[in-house]
């Protein structure tokens, strides 16, 4: 399967479809590292294992990557869903993108169109991780005081390294609110209160846009299950407006669309 992937990428380089391939290489046994292949001779570095967890779509925002031209990218379920969401938010327009994945039968798939990607994602990619769902249910069963204690406890460990923001494909603002310092909207110091402000803001900005890939929680150096915040917010949006994120290239997102027949009864 790995050989098939390497052969396919070689073919894509040779027929001029791509000039850069974003994939994974293996190093230090347990890690799979994002790799940027620019020459066909490097294609044999590519691997595909259960350790290939990163959501590579975040690299498509990086100017050094964009400059390269024709980009190939291999996606796990989270990556494929975020690509759809990014397309729906008009973020990948100027890119010449070739999207690959490896299906359950270990076959290499190159998506010929966004529609094909939609069909594949709808059939193969889960909306929520069952483990996250179980934790969210557990939190929702708590009293408000218990939940407050849980989150203040968790977030006191945050050091504001902003790795959660850095790995999130939906966090693509060129200037983040925390970087606005005239005035300083969010405290820069990393103490419980300022940490709460930051994570609440992040969860709100991702409500109905997060595709629940879970990367923010998985990579958090402080071990905070941050994905639970955005999973919860997504489910609130789902309850209020319906629809799930990351399954369609045309969906937009609930908080940025309106219908003329909206009742607006909430305005008083």
């Amino acid at each position, binding site marked *: 399967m790995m050989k098939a992937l390497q052969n396919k990428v070689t073919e894509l380089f040779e027929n001029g479809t791509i000039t850069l391939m974003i994939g994974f290489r293996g*190093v230090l046994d347990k*890690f799979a590292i*994002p790799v*940027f292949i620019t020459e066909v001779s490097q294609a044999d570095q590519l691997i595909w294992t259960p350790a290939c967890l990163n959501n590579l779509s975040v690299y498509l925002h990086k100017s050094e990557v964009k400059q390269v031209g024709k980009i190939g990218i291999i996606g796990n379920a989270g990556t494929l869903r975020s690509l759809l969401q990014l397309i729906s938010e008009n973020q990948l327009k100027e890119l010449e993108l070739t999207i690959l994945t490896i299906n359950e039968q270990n076959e290499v798939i190159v998506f010929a169109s966004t529609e094909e990607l939609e069909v594949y994602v709808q059939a193969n990619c889960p909306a929520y991780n069952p483990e996250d769902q179980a934790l969210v249910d557990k939190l929702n069963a708590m009293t408000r005081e218990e939940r407050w204690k849980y989150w203040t406890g968790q977030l006191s*460990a945050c*050091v504001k390294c902003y790795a959660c923001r850095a*790995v999130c494909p939906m966090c693509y603002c060129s200037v983040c609110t925390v970087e606005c310092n005239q005035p300083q909207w969010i405290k820069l*110091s990393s103490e419980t209160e300022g940490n709460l402000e930051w994570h609440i803001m992040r969860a709100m900005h991702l409500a109905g846009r997060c595709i629940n890939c879970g990367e923010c929680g998985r990579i958090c150096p402080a*071990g905070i299950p941050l994905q639970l915040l955005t999973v919860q917010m997504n489910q609130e949006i789902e309850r209020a407006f319906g629809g799930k994120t990351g399954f369609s290239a045309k969906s937009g997102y609930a908080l940025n669309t309106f219908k003329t027949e909206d009742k607006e009864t909430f305005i008083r």
Partner: protein
Amino acid sequence: MPLTRSKPKTKKHLSDNDYQMEQSLISSANLQAFFETLLQSGRIVVAPVLKQSGKVFFQPVQAYSEVATDYIQTAFSAKSVVFPKVETLFSFVRKDGEITLTDSLNRIPETVVWGLRPCDAAGFDYLTEFFLRENPDSYFKTRKEHTTLITFGCKEADNACFCTSVGLNPGNTTGSDILMTFMNEECYVEIMTEKGQQAVALAPSLFKASEVRQKDAFLAKPATRFSIDEIKDKIKHAYASAEWKQVSLGCFSCGACAFACPTCTCFDIQDEGTQDKGVRLRCWDACGFGMFTRHSSGHNPKNNQTERRRQRLMHKFNYSVDNLGIVSCVGCGRCIRVCPAHLNIFENILSVTKD
């Protein structure tokens, strides 16, 4: 020519004091009693604790049962004991036109850090050089004076460990007040400083005198990735290497490596509060951030991740050698384990210094 403000002076470790090193033994069973003695002495004891996430963090503990023993390395270093992630430098109140300043330094408690690795202790040694060499930083100095470091030699290493590549080893005593090495059912104790001696003196009956012992057979053997002398020489010419771009492409631009690192010292001064009441804070900063070197004009001399990654690696292996005479990477491997993209510092160093 590297920019060197002053010629590096002869390195003077804080641990290189006049104290005559002593050796002793403590039984593994008595370790707990020693730990409890430290707690009972009123000192704050900071030790590694296993959290629900499966990661181990240094934090103040109340009982020996909280202390993690089965871990290779903590997720973050213990530098926050002497260089907190947020430190109040002073607070102020303005009332009826009068401003009152309150210094925060009179509240620093006596602290013991238990369960450091030898690389971590060497990291404290670098911090001491950095903060105290030229313009002594009173905040760091006071905290350091109130801190005792009790280190445990490493029985195990993983693939991210590379202390032997930077001139250290799993049994080095640099920076430690006490170094413990497990030898079967006993622990070999090297008391390196007066502070270490004071800690042992709290429960002298738990220790018995020992001859000097060879530790090697009881210590891990991490892979050596490069010769530090060669790297120190080659990296002087690595600034213009074309490899920097390749090694930094995966970087997400977060601060995880710098915040986990035992020797990263960058900070940002922030004022919080109102005109009438507030605090001045010192907060950790990281060269990975886009804001790191941005000028008020908007110009940023390190405007992309290639330049920022280069800054981080050059600082560890070249600039700190120019400025303080020390390589400021201790090979703990935290940046490799914590990096969301698993950027590998020793691999990167080898790439940019290859012929």
